[in-house]
């Protein structure tokens, strides 16, 4: 399978702490993306990092990509209760002509007030 695999499956932290989620994948990629899903809702795009990039920031989000290890991490700093959600990584395979994304199973993040 080309799907990414997130680790851990579940993460529980207190407000103010940092949350780190990891994603591993199997094939060469054009880019890797992170999405967020609140319970029972659709997915929302958070950030995209291209295969030639190593780190990217967006607000309290920091994403790293190590193509040699085929892995990525998502760091949420100073977490808030509103960050409680499932987080998915998705990969776009290198050479894809259709832009198909392969999603992992997600990390369920719970942030306690």
């Amino acid at each position: 399978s080309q799907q990414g695999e997130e680790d851990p499956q579940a993460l529980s932290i207190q407000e103010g702490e940092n949350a780190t989620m990891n994603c591993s994948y199997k094939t060469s990629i054009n880019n890797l993306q992170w999405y967020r899903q609140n319970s029972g809702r659709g997915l929302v795009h958070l950030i995209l990092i291209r295969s030639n990039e190593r780190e990217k920031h967006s607000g309290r989000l920091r994403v790293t990509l190590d193509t040699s290890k085929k892995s990525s991490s998502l760091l949420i700093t100073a977490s808030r209760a509103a960050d409680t959600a499932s987080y998915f990584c998705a990969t776009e395979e290198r050479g894809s002509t259709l832009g198909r994304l392969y999603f992992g199973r997600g990390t369920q993040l719970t942030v306690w007030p």
Partner: protein
Amino acid sequence: EAEVAQSPRYKITEKSQAVAFWCDPISGHATLYWYRQILGQGPELLVQFQDESVVDDSQLPKDRFSAERLKGVDSTLKIQPAELGDSAMYLCASSDNDLGTRGNTIYFGEGSWLTVV
């Protein structure tokens, strides 16, 4: 902010009945996707349209699932007959599929929950 519209939000149907889901993508998005998401898992692509044409339906169970996008705008996903294992959330998504520069960012609707009893 433009959104992907889906309906119905929730659907309960009996086994062997037919069920249909509707999606209206973001205006101007040529690419439309239907994903299925089983509880506790990530979304899996069922079918991808480019305008009115199907470009990937390799994961669509074609014996019971069908999808169309007749005018290249809104789309319908149908299941007939429904089976217990079809219980899941069906997500529609769209993109402008800008592969050359920004990468393919996908915009999702809120999903349609299907329960087959």
